[in-house]
């Protein structure tokens, strides 16, 4: 262990950095909020492909200048001639609405329009989906908390949950700052991040517990340092292979998976960071020592 990296030296500065990042994220989430997709806000989403590839986004936008639609957003989506359109109107109120809209747009821009995807979510369903998403994330966090509490001591459980919250809040904060759309697949990504980050934390905690029992004369921070170093190559390799797979989805997996894989990439990076720099220092703050483990075993 000659080439040991002294992680614990950076614990304090990293914690201050994390704290600031979390606070900024919370501020953004509170004041700017998230850019909810139709899943959570209700409304209609259309993915269209226009035969005439040279159509400009401006002319498409002006062709959609129909007051009835409400707030309309148009953006390019992948290939040339592919666009993503979102508007507030719930197209389900009238069954013919979509086919009528198709005719109007085709006529206005003078080219055949193919509606590749139509998603319409009513206000009641969207609020239910949002509630479900939040419940799922809260439930996942509690289940993790419970699992770690059973497998380790409560200090570990608290440490891991603080790290998880840190990951979720910062990931969502970045989505808020960049105004990226949050939809059902982002919730799936956040839950996977929770699982992944937990996975990372558990590996380090396992080693910390083992080393706490092995060495009695080291301080908690030193134990954390040794453990993080021992598991470091694993942490790096797993993050790398996961990131390789994720970047391949992000770049080649098509437009629909872009948001999902972006959230996952963020989560893997933040999750790896937090297992080392957030979860481990927490153990020190709670004065976890060999005695903590032994005392618990006696009970």
């Amino acid at each position, binding site marked *: 262990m000659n080439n040991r990296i002294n992680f614990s030296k950076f614990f304090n500065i990293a914690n201050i950095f994390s704290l600031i990042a979390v606070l900024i994220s919370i501020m953004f989430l509170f004041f700017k909020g998230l850019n909810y997709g139709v899943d959570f806000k209700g409304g209609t989403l259309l993915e269209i492909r226009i035969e005439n590839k040279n159509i400009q986004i401006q002319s498409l936008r002006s062709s959609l200048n129909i007051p009835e639609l409400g707030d309309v957003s148009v953006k390019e989506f992948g290939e040339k001639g592919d666009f993503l359109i979102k508007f507030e109107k719930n197209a389900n109120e009238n069954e*013919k609405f979509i086919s009528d809209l198709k005719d109007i747009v085709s006529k206005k821009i003078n080219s055949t329009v193919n509606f590749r995807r139509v998603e319409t979510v009513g206000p009641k369903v969207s609020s239910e989906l949002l509630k479900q998403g939040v419940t799922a994330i809260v439930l996942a966090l509690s289940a993790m908390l419970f699992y770690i509490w059973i497998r380790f001591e409560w200090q570990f459980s608290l440490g891991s949950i603080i790290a998880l919250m840190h990951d979720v809040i910062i990931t969502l904060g970045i989505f808020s700052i960049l105004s990226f759309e949050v939809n059902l697949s982002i919730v799936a990504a956040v839950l996977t991040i929770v699982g992944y980050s937990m996975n990372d934390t558990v590996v380090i905690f396992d080693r910390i517990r083992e080393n706490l029992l092995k060495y009695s004369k080291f301080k908690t921070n030193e134990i954390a340092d040794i453990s993080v170093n021992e598991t470091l190559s694993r942490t790096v390799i797993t993050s790398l292979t996961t990131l390789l797979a994720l970047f391949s989805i992000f770049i080649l997996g098509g437009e629909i998976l872009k948001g999902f894989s972006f959230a996952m990439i963020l989560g893997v990076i933040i999750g790896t960071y937090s297992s080392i720099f957030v979860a481990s220092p927490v153990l020190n703050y709670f004065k976890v020592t060999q005695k903590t483990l032994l005392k618990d075993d006696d009970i």
Partner: protein
Amino acid sequence: MLSFTKIKVLSIYFILISAIFFASLNLKNNNLIDKNVNLGLDLQGGSYILLEIDTKPLVNQKLQAKVIPIKKLLNENKINFKDFIISPESISLTVDIKKQTKLKNLFFKQTKNTVNNFITDYNKFELDINFNQNKAIIKFSNFGLVSLNNSVLKQSIEIIRRRIDDVGTKEPTILQRGDKRILVELPGIDNPERVKELLGKTAQLTFRLVSEDDGFGSEKLILSENNEELIVNKRVVISGDNLVDAQPQFDNQSNQPIVLFTLDRQGAQKFGKITTENVGRRLAIVLDNSVISAPQIRESITGGTGTISGGFSFQESTDLALLLRSGALPAPINIVEERTVGPDLGKDSIDAGIFSLIIGFILVIIFMFIKYRIFGLISNISLIANLVMMVGILTILEATLTLPGIAGIILTVGMAVDSNVLIYERIKEELKTEKSIIHAFDTGYNKAKITVIDANVTTLIAAVILFIFGSGPVKGFAVTLGIGIITTLFSAYFIARHLTSVIVLNDKEGKYFKL
């Protein structure tokens, strides 16, 4: 011990070979067993439609029907009342406080109760009565509402199934969701707008006489053909319930598309009587509060068949006939969520998904080989076995593969090597202190076991919660992620370990141990 007993090794190969067999069922031209992975709507194209029934009008209708029995009950038992008011969800009346107990007892009488039905399934009454000073309020009880919703939902599902079967969609899924919703999944549908129109229509058909004077018992309705305003009698001559068949046809003379309908015996008698008595008057054919046509009765129609013409296109006459055949929905129905993916987008998604899967896979394999050489190769073999087993299990379960599901597989590829990495890194540490190579491998596997299990259980928890709360495509992600964890554990602790043991035990000089 590092190595397995012969029987265990055989079992590992057996499981692997069965996985390859099941996975291969997805290849084209297999006629062996009819099992394969289904593609989700986002991959093969199709519509996901969530419908919600609106029982409010029905609740009101049912309450209206209670008015006469309630008044009869009050009168028969000499309970004086006044201010009898019917609102959409309740009936209120003023009753003397002294008589209220008597009313309550009558209201919840177990036998011969003409007002309040006892629902045996729930052991509860359909209606509730509440007293507030001298006011009594009658409402549907929670159980009454649930049982009403349930019966409406069951009937609606039946009717919707008939409509969809009639359109001829392949393999539709129609499911009850909660107590108010119906989920319809239509894979590979080419005209979702038409189906949506068919699903959303209540299709309440009535034949009613057009009257001259705008008095009580008549209402103004619009004739959809030419927007003419007609005064139509509220009394229904015959309704869609009397219909036994309806077919689209062409009129012999005008060559216009029309709908030919056939009435049941009771309907035919009534229809004959009315048409005989009202020759010269106009008969309005009303569908969901709009008049399709209002022809003049030229002669009495006693044969029990008739035609509806309303300037239809052939498609419209086909759809109308279909709606009439399937019957009216017991309550209005609304589309609350719709997701439709066109077939070409689905194909693009599969291509992109599979392509990124292959690239991600190759990248991980190269990385592992460079990092761990011979053991990287073992890890790669177990990774391939892992993928084959995932596909095999998905096939056995006939699970639905969605685009997020493919993402789940790719993610598994990235995360699956974690178990092997954990184990190899552990062995590396053991090799530093341990003299015997075999012993180092053995301890490495054993010590890493707890960590590997802990690490995978946490991801499994996330997958299970996603499966419970996720809908549609996201559920597909949870399925592949969950299955991936199980196959990962198997491939790391059985396949990779077996291969490792073969190499370690045969390599006496230790030339491969450059981990």
